[in-house]
């Protein structure tokens, strides 16, 4: 296998053009595991780690643009993420272990498009947009249209994810993330849940929910969100929302949990909001 470490975007575009079969590698924490397991064979790997434009975190009018190559550890250390995107912070902190986070990138978690990708529920409710770049230029896609199925994305040949644009959720006083795994560190989620809630005079004005590991991609439920709006964040209202959540998810049974268990937990996680 050939390995290239381009240091400029122009060099990257040339390499992608010359090696159409090449795999792209950021932190390698998904790609190298899958290559070693023999699930994939690649003639060439192109590493993104030396591309400076993918390494920056910049604020821009009430949004944060995070380079796709920024490691999860750097995201946790960033003060703007801490202050303005606590939901993202919580979800990143739940991923893998400190050593994995020293290598794994946000772009890699998105492009892997796993139903269990731990940053995804948070990025969905935050309304993240993706900037995709190629030799031909750039396009912006909402995350929800980028992810098309388990392991399937809208990336075209010769295209990379260059940055993730995340709006600050102004006015959303409740920013909640919960991941249920089989232990604390180094656990793939059995169910995960992200919620953003804006209240006024103790009534929910706007609610956004997303669940991970309970469907082929992240699950949203506009019905559940609508059912909470106009109500207080009470156990009574949340019990109705939890039922709608259980109806919306499409979990499977695997080595980690049964479909039935996942469905129940997806609803139960909503009830946690009553305690906030």
């Amino acid at each position, binding site marked *: 296998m*050939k*390995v290239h470490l381009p240091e400029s975007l122009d060099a990257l575009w040339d390499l992608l053009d010359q090696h159409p079969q090449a795999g792209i590698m950021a932190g390698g924490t998904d790609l190298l595991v899958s290559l070693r397991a023999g699930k994939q064979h690649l003639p060439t790997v192109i590493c993104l780690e030396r591309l400076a434009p993918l390494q920056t975190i910049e604020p821009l009018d009430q949004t944060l643009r995070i380079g796709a190559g920024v490691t999860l550890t750097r995201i946790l250390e960033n003060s703007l993420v801490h202050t303005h995107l606590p939901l993202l912070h919580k979800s990143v902190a739940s991923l*893998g272990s400190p050593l994995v986070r020293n290598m794994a990138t946000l772009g890699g978690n998105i492009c892997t498009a796993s139903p269990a990708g731990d940053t995804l529920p948070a990025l969905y409710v935050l309304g993240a947009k993706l900037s995709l770049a190629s030799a031909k230029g750039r396009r912006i896609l909402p995350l929800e249209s980028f992810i098309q199925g388990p392991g399937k994305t809208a990336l075209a040949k010769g295209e990379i994810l260059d940055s993730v644009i995340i709006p600050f959720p102004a006015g959303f006083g409740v920013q909640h993330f919960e991941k249920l795994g089989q232990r604390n560190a180094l656990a793939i989620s059995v169910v995960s849940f992200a919620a953003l809630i804006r209240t006024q005079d103790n009534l929910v004005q706007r609610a956004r929910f997303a669940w991970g590991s309970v469907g082929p991609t992240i699950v949203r439920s506009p019905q559940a969100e609508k059912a909470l709006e106009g109500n207080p964040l009470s156990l009574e209202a949340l019990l109705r929302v939890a039922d709608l959540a259980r109806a919306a998810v499409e979990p499977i049974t695997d080595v980690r949990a049964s479909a039935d268990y996942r469905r129940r937990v997806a609803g139960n996680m909503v009830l946690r909001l009553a305690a906030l």
Partner: protein
Amino acid sequence: MQIKFTLNHQPVTLEADPSMRAIDLLREHCGLTGPKEGCSTGECGACAVWINGVTRLSCLMLAAQLQGQSVVTVEGVNPDSPDTLHPVQEAFVNCGAVQCGYCTPGMIMTAAQLLACERTPSRERIREAISGNLCRCTGYHKIVDAVEAAAQAMDREIS
């Protein structure tokens, strides 16, 4: 491919397959058996080394990624006096934090990196920091004791 990098503070140049894993390059080509292979999938931390000062897993890196970087293995953790132990190593010995020793090099790299950034981490913080380093022998208590003791020793040295 010719790979040039700094290994334990010395420049090295090697001829190696760029797609071999960094851990194989270090163990087989460089003869450094400090980094251990426990799982080869990123879960155990036995293969941890510092790349430009950041603790990373050498089982999930390709040899080519070392090009031009500074690599430190447990063999080079105490550059100022290579013949003596790093305070973290000393504390591991004194606290009985080593049983079979397989996890120890990775633990040392993670712990020494933590103490390079934080002078007096809490026990909780230490547990969190070593949560990617698995130990099947000690039950972790003595490892946390050792990191705490090392932090106190290093703190005394500074002040």
